[in-house]
């Protein structure tokens, strides 16, 4: 039984959840989908923040916000036209990290020391790794601020799509006092365990990183030492929020077979991590064809060029019908396979670069798929 008249599952999510996380392989349109979900939330009357990762500049322009601002920018209300409101922010790992250090430091002096450390100065511009560490932190901070009813997170295109969840956990594992203590200047903790572990680490590090690195690392980590407990408890609080029923994870996929393999993998992974997986969004799909005219309705006239042109247009139409059939089958396969909800958003091509395109997607995520052609006895 299919919910031909019901609204898509995303409709309930955007009006009820506090956090929605969009996962998916790179290139499936995650950022655009996250923006459309945010807009759908605003249309439902809520105050929504979309946290995007490296959005296409055009998308920022479409939303009427500057790229590279230090704080969330409000999407002009003339565009949103509802009681709700929409903000967007492009995640800047440096701002997130530095404000966390300032918040957790007991003195300004201590914060300055961490942020002025030469190891940090060398590493802060690295693209790889930094987004993963700060996405969850940013999500948590904005959620806690109470300024927003809903925060939508577009996940970084990283080594693995759930890295943003794993990274804080890895950090927490490292910040375990027994572990990180080995890397810190000796504070008098003694005993066989400590001296052995320290001996191994410093002999290995001196040999591979060269002499002097261990001192740099110690002074960097030493600067943090008062913050470890807060950082650890933060990592735990993020995890608690994301596993609660206030949160929802959506896996975005495209009809491409590699993307679907990745999507299935992610769905399984989310479930094994006991995160609240809500369903799939099949993006860039050709599934909906109802309401579209057919080239056969056109009058070709008598010119030979027009007649052959129409014949070729018919062939293109047949190809699109095949794609529609393929994508409807895919949608059903996603539902059956994951025992979950799935909804499709249309292939909009270049139209996605303006606000009208985003609005089309947002409407599709909220209202019953009236345009969906459910022929073929589906």
């Amino acid at each position, binding site marked *: 039984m299919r919910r031909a008249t019901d609204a898509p599952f995303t409709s309930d999510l955007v009006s009820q959840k506090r956090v929605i996380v969009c996962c998916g*392989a*790179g*290139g*499936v349109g995650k950022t655009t989908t996250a923006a459309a979900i945010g807009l759908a939330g605003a249309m439902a009357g809520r105050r929504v923040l979309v946290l995007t990762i490296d959005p*296409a500049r*055009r998308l920022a322009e479409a939303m009427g916000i500057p790229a590279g601002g230090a704080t969330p920018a409000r999407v002009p209300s003339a565009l949103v036209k509802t009681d709700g409101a929409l903000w967007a922010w492009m995640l800047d790992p440096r701002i997130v990290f530095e404000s966390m250090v300032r918040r957790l430091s007991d003195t300004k002096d201590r914060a300055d020391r961490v942020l002025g450390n*030469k*190891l940090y100065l*060398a*590493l802060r511009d*690295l*693209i*790889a790794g*930094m987004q993963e560490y700060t996405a969850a932190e940013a999500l948590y901070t904005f959620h806690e601020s109470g300024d927003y009813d809903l925060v939508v997170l577009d996940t970084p*295109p*990283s080594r*693995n799509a759930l890295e943003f969840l794993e990274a804080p956990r*890895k950090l927490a*594992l*490292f910040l*375990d006092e027994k*572990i990180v203590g*080995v*890397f810190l200047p000796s504070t008098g903790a003694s005993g066989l365990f400590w001296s052995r*572990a320290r001996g*191994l680490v410093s*002999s*290995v590090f001196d*040999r*591979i*990183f*060269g*002499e*002097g*690195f261990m001192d740099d690392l110690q002074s960097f980590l030493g600067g943090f030492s008062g913050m470890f407990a807060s950082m650890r408890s933060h990592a735990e609080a993020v995890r608690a929020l994301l596993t609660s029923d206030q949160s929802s994870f959506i896996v975005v996929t495209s009809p*491409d077979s*590699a993307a679907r*393999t990745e999507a299935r*993998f992610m769905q399984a992974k989310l479930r094994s991590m006991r995160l609240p997986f809500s369903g799939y969004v099949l993006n860039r799909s050709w599934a909906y064809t109802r*309401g*579209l*005219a057919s*080239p056969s309705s*056109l009058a070709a006239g008598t*010119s030979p*060029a*027009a007649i*052959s*042109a129409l014949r*070729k*247009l*018919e*062939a*293109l*139409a047949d*190809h*699109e019908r095949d794609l529609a059939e393929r994508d409807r089958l895919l949608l059903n396969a996603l539902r059956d396979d994951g025992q979950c909800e799935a909804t499709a958003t249309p*292939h909009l*091509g*270049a139209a996605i670069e303006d606000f009208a395109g985003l609005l089309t997607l947002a409407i599709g995520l909220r209202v019953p798929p009236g345009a969906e052609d459910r022929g073929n006895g589906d």
Partner: protein
Amino acid sequence: MMDLSRLRAVLVAGKGGVGKTTVTAGLARAAAAAGKRVLAAEVSYELDSPTPLAEVLGLKRASEEPVLVERNLSLALLTPHAGHLHFLRDALPMRMLADAAMKSAAIRRFLLAAPSLAEMGVLYRILDFLRRKRSDGSFEHDLLIVDLPATGHALGLAQVPSVILKVIKRGPIHDAMREGLVLLTDPKQTGTLLVTLPETLPVSEAIELAHGISKHKIPLAGVIVNRVPVDPFTPEERAAIDAMHIDTAAMLGARTIPRIDRAKESIARLKRELGHSPLTLPEVIDETHLERTIAQAFGIGAKA
């Protein structure tokens, strides 16, 4: 388009979903058919994550050590873990110490948590494969072709050596990263193939990526535009269509027309901004044809 036949390493880069894996596999097969000993490799940060390149090459499971796929063609996974282990074994005087280090919870967790050390492990693994020699003194792998993870990371890998060299001033990691930097920036040894799609945004991103790569002095060997829609219309037919003033968004079949136009614009723009014509691959292409097209474009197999 650059001649790839003399290179030691080709890095296939681009956004997710543009077809990097298909291009990697096509290039690997073409080079193997031309008589080169080829190692195709994909980066895997977790052992249970999907391995699309292995799938395209018809292998059920890839492993960290090369597995023979067919004559002259092997496949390996590039994992940070294998890179770290080999590195420690090479750098530390005793194997025992290396193994003890990899067993130490403190060191393992440090390697996991520190940003960029994973990329460093992958890069070390690439160097390791390129150095390997057979008993007759020839290279074990003439050509290494790497299917890089989706963007961010293409650059991520590229910027790793220079950042690490800033932080670590001496010692084996310093030396390995210096070697890595020399390799990555030498146009006689390394080339990057940038794969993109014929749409406005992917092309903008490809141009940005090309500039990022050149900022790190990594040689760009070529650009491939994948899945280009075929334009079925003659100029006269197209004029006839335009004269009908169709709402292309609201008619079956007609939705393809703006895609065709955008594809043409995108290809022209790439040529304009990057200075050379990209190789275009049609939307529907079989394996043999793909291999042949890639081989011709990049000077592979000319003297097989």
